[in-house]
């Protein structure tokens, strides 16, 4: 299986890449290639040109600034998965990376490529929404804008990035206060498969044990990450135990109408959603209270 012919560019600066993107009609950015090359081999995509971002060093970093964690779009999963800072501060993200594809995919795939691709079953989009991440988009000429994760995912395989103009250049994770914790859970047939259902939870708990803020986000159940607002409302102000977590999970998944496909029926997805949301809430709560790693 070979891709159809295309022109190949390997710019070494972001500005040059953005200029090529705006000038070359039908061109696509190439990040880790772990989705794009597969689609091109199947001839589902036939871009006229590829603009390879892999030689742009300025897009590969993990750094702290004013309590925020800034991640360059071309940072590979493995580097993020190995980062002690992420493991400690954003355990939901760490777990999502640990459960993403296999080692070879994690050695090549990038955070920017995954989020721009916006697969409804991908690991990272729900986590970004749960963590209230910000996406930085850039276009030729120096124009930049910040997009909230809640607004970034628009539909299946569709983001708020302007096609053929904008690239995702940075992901910004806000500091979560003391007393915060998170969890990510995924059900898949085999470890390397995409999820049948996945859930990311992030919350902050006060000294009295009451939930101050909670975000519960599902993946694989809708065209874009699904905020289980019903669950978040039950959690607000509450002290979490088994019963409360079960009630929150019930409320958060009641209105779900997940798709049926070869992997699972709609009924099964909904049932598993309820179970995983409950478990992830209990885990995130325990972590927020410092009771569990």
């Amino acid at each position: 299986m070979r891709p159809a012919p295309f022109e190949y560019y390997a710019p070494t600066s972001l500005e040059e890449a953005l200029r090529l993107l705006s000038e070359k009609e039908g061109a696509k950015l190439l990040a880790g290639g772990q989705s794009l090359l597969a689609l091109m081999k199947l001839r589902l995509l036939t871009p006229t040109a590829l603009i390879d971002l892999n030689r742009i060093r300025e897009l590969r970093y993990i750094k702290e600034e004013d309590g925020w964690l800034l991640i360059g779009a071309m940072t590979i999963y493995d580097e993020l998965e190995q980062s002690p800072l992420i493991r400690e501060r954003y355990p939901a993200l760490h777990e999502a990376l640990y459960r993403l594809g296999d080692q070879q995919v994690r050695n090549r795939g990038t955070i920017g490529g995954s989020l721009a691709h916006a697969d409804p079953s991908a690991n990272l989009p729900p986590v970004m929404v749960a963590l209230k991440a910000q996406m930085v988009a850039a276009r030729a000429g120096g124009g930049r804008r910040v997009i909230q994760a809640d607004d970034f995912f628009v539909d299946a395989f569709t983001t708020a990035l302007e096609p053929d103009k904008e690239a995702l250049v940075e992901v910004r994770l806000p500091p979560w206060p003391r007393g915060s914790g998170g969890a990510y859970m995924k059900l898949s047939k085999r470890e390397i498969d995409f999820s049948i259902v996945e859930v990311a939870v992030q919350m902050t708990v006060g000294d009295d044990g009451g939930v101050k803020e909670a975000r519960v986000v599902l993946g694989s159940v809708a065209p874009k990450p699904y905020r289980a607002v019903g669950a978040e409302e039950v959690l607000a102000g509450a002290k979490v135990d088994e019963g409360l977590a079960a009630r929150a999970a019930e409320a958060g998944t009641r209105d779900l109408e997940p798709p049926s496909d070869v992997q699972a029926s709609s009924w099964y997805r909904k049932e598993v959603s309820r179970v995983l949301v409950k478990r992830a809430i209990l885990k995130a709560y325990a972590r927020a209270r410092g009771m569990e790693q």
Partner: protein
Amino acid sequence: MSQELRHIRVKVNGQWYEADVEPRMLLVDLLRDVLGFTGVHIGCDTGHCGACTVIMDGRSVKSCMVLAVQADGSEIMTVEGLEKDGQLHPLQEAFWENHALQCGYCTPGQLMSAYFLLSRNPNPSEEEIRKAIEGNLCRCTGYVNIVKAIKAAALKMSSSKAG
């Protein structure tokens, strides 16, 4: 659309090679068809089986999921690079001794994944070994003996270093 050829240089198993390739050529085809490293296997061609795994600049990658032009200037190691002067690598010996292969089709990829694991974790747990080869499918042996072999190789390598 006519394809402009690109001149690239890659270092494979310690030796530099040059080639003119179409941008759409996959790294696995460069290694097998142009440079003759047929130990790199193609099982699925879609990124799912891991038979084509090689080490590229220190990291395991599926060579059917990388373009040859992307490897320009890179250092690659294939299964052929494990053996040195007629002496099998401890991983190869351990696979042999532990019956970690039957048909051998997946073996080059398993070895490369194991090589990457041991390059940064010389003493992996069973769970870490299983995690490290989850992208490498074996349809014959099952994974028990492969896991055993990697564990044995790790032991052998660390004791030979210590001694």
